């Protein structure tokens, strides 16, 4: 199995910088998730590691070997693509055999049969083996393309949003299956997604990518609790964090639009000028005795919880409350926050300058 290192890797397409000084160190056997919005450079990162693109500058290492000059075949990585992942015209079985038939692997027919059978069993696609790939549903295709990766027993699995075409239920099932698979194979996984739920639930560690820059690396819990800046804070977590611009005045938070005040326990030393207050929806409370008045703007039912959008003047805040509490749109409510959960971001740079304790 393998460790993957990227040292200040940059990739420029003509004059567009897709990746800027990316540094990554993915440990052997780790499930690493790369999260980012569309166009962030996630696919580019995978293609660089797979050897389908050359970095403009920087060094890529797999297991300590500098692989910049290696072709994709030599790197022994498996790639599950976002789309067009299967060879057309071939049956599922032939798709699974295809990587094993390469000259560099030189596998015997018996071995090929055995590995295909193993992959098919693992992914529960045995009944599909003799089907043509254009007769498969989206979920079946995804399984087959994952199967094509696991028959090879590669050092590294690179997966580019492999679950994006699936319906919500299947996606949930596949999340656990993939995670399970990774544990059983003990392989290094680099999993790319723009879905922060996938990142949070699957990753041992994750990296947040934005505009070709790695904003933060850490465990999902770490990143959720302590986002490096307001972008990461806004991108990770669902429903999204409330980011309220304002400043601190005599130990209280003053939110500029709507100019309302909320209590604070502590304030970071650096919070002298403009500050953005970050507060997760679950840390807002709607109770009758709370300090501030608001109007219910919208209610979204998510099953076990409901996300309530509150309106204070022109400011909107999201709060998540248990589903059993009856709340109606346009109702007058009172709300407050947990002062010890507030995260402070610099009003100018958006950098995290501390959190309340």
């Amino acid at each position: 199995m393998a460790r993957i290192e990227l040292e200040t890797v940059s990739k420029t397409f003509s004059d567009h910088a897709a990746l800027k000084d990316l540094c990554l160190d993915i440990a052997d056997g780790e499930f690493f998730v790369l999260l980012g919005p569309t166009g962030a450079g996630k696919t580019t990162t995978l293609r660089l590691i797979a050897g389908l693109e050359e970095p403009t500058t920087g060094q890529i290492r797999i297991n300590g070997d500098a692989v910049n000059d290696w072709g994709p075949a030599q790197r022994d990585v498996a790639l599950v693509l976002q789309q067009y992942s299967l060879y057309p015209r071939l049956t599922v079985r032939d798709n699974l055999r295809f990587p094993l038939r390469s000259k560099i692997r030189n596998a015997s027919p018996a071995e090929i049969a055995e590995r295909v059978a193993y992959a098919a069993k693992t992914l529960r696609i045995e009944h599909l083996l003799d089907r043509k790939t254009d007769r498969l549903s989206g979920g079946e295709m995804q399984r087959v393309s994952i199967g094509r990766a696991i028959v090879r027993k590669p050092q590294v699995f690179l997966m580019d949003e492999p679950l994006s075409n699936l319906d919500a239920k299947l996606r949930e099932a596949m999340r656990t299956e993939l995670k399970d698979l990774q544990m059983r194979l003990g392989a290094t996984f680099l999993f790319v997604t723009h879905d922060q739920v996938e990142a949070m639930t699957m990753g041992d560690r994750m990296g947040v990518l934005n505009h070709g820059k790695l904003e933060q690396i850490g465990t999902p819990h770490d990143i959720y609790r302590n986002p490096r800046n307001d972008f990461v804070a806004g991108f990770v977590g669902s429903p999204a964090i409330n980011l309220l611009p304002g400043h601190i005045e005599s130990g209280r938070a003053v939110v500029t639009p709507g100019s309302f005040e909320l209590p604070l326990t502590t304030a970071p030393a650096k919070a002298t000028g403009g500050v953005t207050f970050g507060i997760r929806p679950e840390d807002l409370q709607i109770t009758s005795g709370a300090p501030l008045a608001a109007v219910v703007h919208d209610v979204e039912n998510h099953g076990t919880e409901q996300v309530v959008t509150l309106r204070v003047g022109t400011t909107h805040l999201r709060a998540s409350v248990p589903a059993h509490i009856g709340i109606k749109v346009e109702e007058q409510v009172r709300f407050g926050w947990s002062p010890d959960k507030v995260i402070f971001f610099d009003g100018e740079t958006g950098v995290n300058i501390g959190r309340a304790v």
Partner: protein
Amino acid sequence: MATVTSYGQRLGNRVAVGMIILALIVFLAPIAWIGATAFKPRNLATTVPPTIFFAPEVSPFVKLFTKRVQLKPNEKVDYESAPWWERIVLDGGERISRTGRGEVQLSGYPSRFLNSLIVAITSTFLAVAMGTITAYGFSRFKVKGEADWLFFILSTRMLPPVVVAIPMFLMYRAVGLNDTHLGLIILYTAFNVSFAVWLMKGFIDEIPREYEEAALVDGYTRMEAFFKIVLPEAATGIAATAVFCFITAWNEYAFALIMTNRRAQTAPPFIPSQVGSGLPDWTVIASGTALFLLPVAIFTFLLRNHLLRGMSFGAIRK
């Protein structure tokens, strides 16, 4: 397919079918004429109005394949022991010329036909192979000045080829390519390759490069990926391109007439040259033409499924 049709649509369909029938009549009439004339007795070939009903004969084909001389006024022939096909010729007032050893002398047609096959098949193969590989390169790799190169390649077709016939003739004579198969093959390949590049580029651009990239990551070389993934996917385009190239090479007249006279002459310049030998016999010309049409017809028929998809130039997928 539209399953629900309105009155207007049905009317439209009828009009369309009518137009197709009309077009078919226009296109098929000359072919029907050639086919009919190829089996007519000589005296019915040029009647006015045309003879439509007649007893078909194979005499034009016998004459097409053999070398004949006119019977002299009092020449004695052994009519009784002659085979049936020789009698046909004798009935027409001619006799088949024979070598000193008594072997039947063939006309020039079979060897011209063979030349046509050799030249057209080889040049089609070369043009399509070169076109496909070039198109693949343009489609998949960053080529400096790609648009300019492609324009340059196309520009070779921007003037009628005959314009360069005389310089080509002089050059060919200088290097000894006149009246050789190789000479014609080079010419026809050169005509067709630009067309093949453009056509194939369109088809290859349509094939997602992800397929090949998956193969590269799976442990195949670029070449293996090309042969295993790209070629099968491009089969439709290759078939369409091959038919176009084959038709161009097969039907080419002007250069064949100028550059060849015997050894490497193809059928197109040969067939009309038969008008001049003796009295014009249109039935022989028609039979030669009818046979000449067959290879293209067969080739196109075999590839018809690919062509239907290919003619839409990738617009209809799967």
